[in-house]
């Protein structure tokens, strides 16, 4: 295990596929600042090449502004830091156009995380290794968010410049295959 996981390797999963010999390891993904201490997890994401033992921790980035965009002042949530948020990495892949590795993550928000009932508001962000930062994506794609460790069930893969995952159109909808192109940031189902 690369150093960030040496002390605690519980609940690690591999995101998607191995890309050019690199694994994307992920641990945790729920953010709750108050109330439910047991959910107070930080997400750790690390790119790791086991052959060379090189690793690269991915910054969590800022998402306060992202949450503010979803919930402008005066909206349903008055106290931003207490919004339980599930951060779900949906894909890891390589963009040959820009020679860059990218990650896609999805935020969903719960008024009450004890209830399995996420808010309609949701957000996507994309990470670029070259810029070492996350930025918002203006898309609405079917997501897979009902469980926080769904990647280890093999429901996401990377193939030829695209990340693919099984997503849900809505709560009661069917599963659809979402294919996201890392170069032009367009998806098809």
């Amino acid at each position: 295990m690369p150093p960030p996981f040496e002390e605690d390797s519980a609940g690690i999963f591999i995101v998607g596929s191995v890309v050019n010999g690199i694994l994307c390891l992920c641990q945790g993904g729920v953010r709750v600042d108050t109330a439910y201490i047991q959910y107070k997890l930080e997400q750790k994401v690390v790119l790791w090449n086991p052959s060379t033992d090189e690793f690269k921790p991915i910054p969590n980035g800022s998402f306060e502004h992202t949450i503010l965009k979803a919930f402008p002042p005066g909206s349903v949530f008055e106290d931003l830091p207490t919004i339980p948020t599930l951060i779900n990495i949906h894909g890891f892949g390589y963009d040959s156009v820009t020679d860059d590795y990218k990650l896609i993550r999805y935020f969903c928000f719960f008024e009450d995380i004890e209830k399995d009932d996420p808010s309609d508001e949701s957000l996507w962000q994309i990470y670029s290794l070259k810029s070492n930062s996350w930025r918002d994506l203006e898309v609405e794609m079917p997501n897979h968010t009902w469980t926080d460790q769904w990647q280890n069930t093999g429901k996401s893969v990377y193939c030829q410049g695209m990340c693919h995952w099984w997503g849900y159109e809505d709560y009661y909808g069917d599963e659809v295959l979402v294919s996201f192109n890392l170069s032009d940031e367009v998806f098809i189902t």
Partner: protein
Amino acid sequence: MVVLKESIAMIEYEDDPFYFFISILGEIGVAESWTRLFKIGPLYGVEEPIVVGKNADIVYMKKDEEVARFDLNTEVIEDIGVRGRHKCCQMVIYNESLLPIGGMHG
């Protein structure tokens, strides 16, 4: 879901008796282009599939959490000496590469 021969493939299964079905997606975004390649079974004591390997062998978890491999060519089943925990096991196909991860020096 797995990548087989540069295409997206999925493993479906039905229980009692247990069969695996491996299908491949011909064209991305075209649901009608799923083509069923293999039907494997019946197999016994299967909990769920984990992955399809490069040699079209299928790796699955048994009800006792032992991980087994079924070789499509020889139809031999063998335990691979790995156990899942809490009926949970993840596997990926690994290609070794000595390339640097990059992006770290600017």
